């Protein structure tokens, strides 16, 4: 027993040694960052040639009824329910689209690939997707293009040549700026904050965190980043993790960033149940409905998000435009129903707009 205990302790010590020696976990990725200027002046964006893919011998779909399947990262969370609503709204408005949403019950690359593969076989005209992994999804999307299917992404991109267009909800550096600026306004330039994110491997979250780090270093250099914790897309785990952070840092912790539509309300709940409303700020990405109770009570002041219903709506319109042949490589804007003309950036991305900040004054007007 002694030997065994000793061995176990030794193993643990070794492992915790390597764990502590490992580079501090920030949750960001290591891709190059491009922080915006502190005063928000937009940098000049160089025009890029079209870098998306194109379907092989697509049939003429102009004005004809098409069937479209939407395969989000996972089904059964508020965020993708909202994008689905937008897609169905747009399909109803267009009248000549038969759209449905189907997908895995957890954010799993293998299952998502299988779903797409099955719908390619069943012979759809268009595929809308939000990728769990930009590279892993590429082979199956290329296969769809080879079968003459129109492929448009939204929310989470794939490698550009594996799809035709990507509807970008907001640029990563724009989100990062909105998040950090709002946090700085609430906790001051010298406040300390922590981050609750989903998982290590979610590309969007990793990108936002990397951009937030770069922007904070440039524009709010005295803010202190305490740590980032992982909480899956799980309500209760997010709550527990946020509570642990509050307990660990005590008065040092001034703010929590929630990086997902699950983590942000759970962090707000943790702050509420710890009676720290007003002393710990919560800023994050979330849908307004989940945040209304906290915003109305004044516990949370700013929620950053684009409108996911609009995102789905725009994606459906883009797909229809591609199928009709009205959106072709080289275009600079695309018409998206009630949203008007959307700008095209980075070669093959359609920009939905700047991120939106929900506050006590306007959150009541939104229902998603």
């Amino acid at each position, binding site marked *: 027993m002694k030997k065994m205990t000793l061995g176990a302790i030794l193993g643990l010590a070794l492992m915790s040694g390597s764990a502590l020696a490992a580079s501090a976990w920030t949750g960001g990725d290591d891709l190059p960052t491009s922080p915006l200027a502190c005063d928000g002046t937009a940098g000049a964006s160089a025009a890029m040639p079209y870098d998306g893919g194109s379907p092989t011998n697509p049939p003429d779909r102009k004005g004809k009824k098409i069937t479209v399947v939407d395969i989000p990262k996972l089904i059964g969370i508020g965020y993708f329910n909202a994008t689905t609503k937008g897609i169905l709204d747009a399909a109803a408005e267009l009248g000549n689209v038969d759209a449905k949403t189907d997908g895995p019950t957890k954010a799993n690359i*293998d299952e998502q*690939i299988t779903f797409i593969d099955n719908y390619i076989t*069943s012979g759809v005209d268009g595929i809308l997707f939000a990728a769990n992994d930009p590279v892993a999804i590429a082979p199956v999307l290329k296969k769809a293009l080879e079968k003459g299917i129109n492929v448009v992404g939204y929310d989470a991109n794939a490698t550009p040549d594996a799809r035709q267009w990507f509807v970008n909800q907001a640029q990563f550096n724009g989100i990062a700026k909105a998040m950090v600026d709002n946090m700085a306004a609430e906790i001051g330039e010298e406040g300390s904050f922590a981050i609750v994110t989903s998982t290590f491997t979610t590309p969007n979250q990793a990108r936002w965190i990397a951009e937030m780090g770069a922007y904070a270093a440039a524009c709010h250099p005295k803010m202190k980043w305490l740590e980032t914790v992982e909480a899956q897309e799980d309500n209760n785990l997010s709550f527990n993790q946020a509570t642990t952070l509050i307990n660990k840092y005590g008065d040092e912790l001034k703010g929590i960033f929630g990086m997902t539509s699950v983590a942000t309300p759970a962090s707000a709940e943790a702050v509420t149940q710890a009676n720290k409303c007003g002393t710990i700020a919560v800023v994050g990405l979330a849908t307004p409905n989940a945040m209304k109770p906290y915003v109305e009570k004044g516990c949370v002041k700013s929620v950053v998000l684009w409108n996911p219903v609009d995102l789905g709506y725009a994606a459906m319109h883009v797909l229809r435009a591609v199928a009709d042949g009205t959106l072709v490589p080289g275009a600079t804007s695309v018409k998206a129903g009630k949203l008007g003309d959307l700008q095209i950036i980075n070669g093959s991305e359609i920009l939905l707009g700047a991120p939106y900040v929900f506050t006590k004054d306007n959150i009541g007007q939104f229902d998603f």
Partner: protein
Amino acid sequence: MTASKLLRHETILAVLTIIALAVLASLSDKFFTAENLLNQGRLMSEVGLVALAMTFVIVTGGIDLSVGSILGLTAILLGVFWKNLGLPLPLAIAGALACGTFAGWVNGFIITRFSVPPLIATLATLALYRGLAEGISEARSVRGYPEWFYVFGQGEILGVPFQLWILGIATVVSAVILGLTPFGRATYAIGANETAARFSGIRVHATKLWIYTAAGFVSALAAVIFVSRVTTTRSDMGTGLELDVITGVVLGGTSIFGGRGTIIGTVLGLILIQALKNGLALSGVKGDGTIVVIGLVLIGAILIGAMFDKNRGG
């Protein structure tokens, strides 16, 4: 136990599978095409490979919950060996396979040397191996493999997906080993009664060690195919694989208490599940509906098997 009795569940399953295939083919004309069926074979290869080894594991009365984590760990190591350590890709593949096999051996070692029940031992290594994959990768993906590597997951030989050949060969080999060799008989004997097996001179520990090591090896092999198929590594690869594999194996009639089960049953079980997933999707049933149907079929098939054979151990 006579062969006819052993095959009873498999016969029922075969009939069920044929009925399912016929129904699904009538629901969608896109289902029963060579292209679709071969493509489905490609998609089920990873689960299929692991299920073959899992059949041996469960026949001995054991279980291996860590296969999905071994897959994830091997995938990460493959990327790290190649990209971070700069090994040539073939060497990196061999190294990753060796590590995955070693992970399986560790399972077997813990189980046989310390008499830890397999469920608990592999529950612990499920967390450990996944944790190592996350720690080693630090959430970074490795991409940009040379073109020739993609042949394992995306290539074809004579019009048949590459990995389907591997699965086919592995199926034949494992069916022969389990059905016709002394090793196979030892596997059944251990599952039927471990103490009796030991007294009749079977090297119980060695046999089990081989089987868990083999489970590690096929999980690693599945990892290489998977990475090649999706062209990237991620530390969450293979999450939940163990439940898919175990579902296929028990649907195939392998008793979770050990002592009975066949490779042909496992293959039929896998085909039935994959056909349902694909066929229902093609006929317009959504994913959540398909999950419900698979649950019902699992209980139903075992129930029918039990009704035909009142004497099976419970």
